[in-house]
């Protein structure tokens, strides 16, 4: 009986080890991450507006159907990138994701940005050059440092009324997603 209990205890310890391994390995093994899904729709240096969530239709990214979304994919291996443009006087936010779906940075237009989005995205080496003033950027550029070079910048915009959705989505599409001129 004691031996059986010892085996069960051993099974418990082995189970905890399996649990930790599963939790740590899962992010690397997942095939349907945000990065994979955004890579399927996003093009490098191009703003892509996501289709509205259709009633009853698939919604793998679990988007809020009340909002309009735009994705800008940047490849920082060739230099820093930027997302610039003017957005309507409504609530909007911008967030930077890596391929695993981790939000590296996010802010909203309530943080004093106003209507103008002027975001520069730099990797660690480029940020160091920026600090050493070896890269010149315009004053007022919102600087975001990332850990990886394959980056997705997502802008979420709330249409003030459902009827304005198409117009707001069109304005999202006019944002400029491109390598930063240095």
């Amino acid at each position, binding site marked *: 009986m004691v*031996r059986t209990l010892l085996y*069960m205890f051993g099974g418990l310890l082995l189970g905890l080890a399996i649990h930790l391994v599963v*939790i740590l390995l899962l992010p690397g093994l997942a095939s349907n991450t945000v990065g994979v899904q955004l890579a399927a729709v996003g093009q490098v240096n191009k703003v892509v507006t996501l289709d509205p969530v259709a009633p009853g239709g698939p919604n793998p990214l679990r988007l809020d159907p009340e909002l309009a979304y735009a994705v800008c994919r940047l490849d920082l291996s060739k230099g820093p990138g930027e997302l610039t443009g003017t957005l309507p006087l409504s*609530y909007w936010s911008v967030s930077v994701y890596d391929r695993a*779906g981790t939000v590296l940075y996010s802010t*909203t237009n309530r943080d004093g940005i106003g209507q103008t989005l002027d975001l520069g995205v730099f990797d660690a080496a480029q940020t160091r050059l920026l600090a050493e003033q070896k890269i010149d950027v315009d004053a007022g550029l919102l600087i975001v440092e990332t850990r990886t070079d394959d980056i997705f910048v997502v802008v979420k915009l709330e249409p003030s009324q459902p009827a304005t959705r198409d117009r707001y989505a069109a304005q999202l599409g006019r944002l400029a997603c491109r390598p930063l001129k240095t």
Partner: protein
Amino acid sequence: MRFLLNLLLLLVVALAVGFGLSWYAVTDGRLVGAAQIGPWTAWPRAGSPDPDPYTRAYLARSGALQLGQGEGIRFVATADSDGVPLDRNCRYRIDGSTPTATFWTLVPTAPDGATIARPDGPPGFNSRRIARANDGSVQLYVSKTLAPLNWLEITGSGAFWLVLDLYDTTLFSGVGSSDASLPSIIREAC
């Protein structure tokens, strides 16, 4: 023979504990990373630049585009305030107040994320377009049958979830209001 039986027992316990705990951690997750307020559950670190390993595993499994910490937070309810899973054949009253936020949306969805509201109507509630009581609280109805006040008609049958997105909120930020009350979900009729 006894040794083999004990070894089998060890393996069964190890696999059940290992995979059972992992499944719990990335679905319910209350003991490891998720926060629960009444029937509502959120992963406060899902929008963080440095999520903990459990939240990272949850992100990988869900595949959902998370709200960043600077944007807001998402709560999901899969059951009413009595713990009974939400059923599209029942009428629910969502009653109470919400934390401070610029605005919020409340969308009923199928478990796979598809919206279930009537196709030619709004997909959910928007806090800017609802009627409120004098104290700012809300009474929202989600059902297939006609209901008073703020009513959202849903379609289909089976289980559903309620997804509450709070935008620009101070909840879990450590600043501003510490009021973490969320509305109750009351099943009225089936």
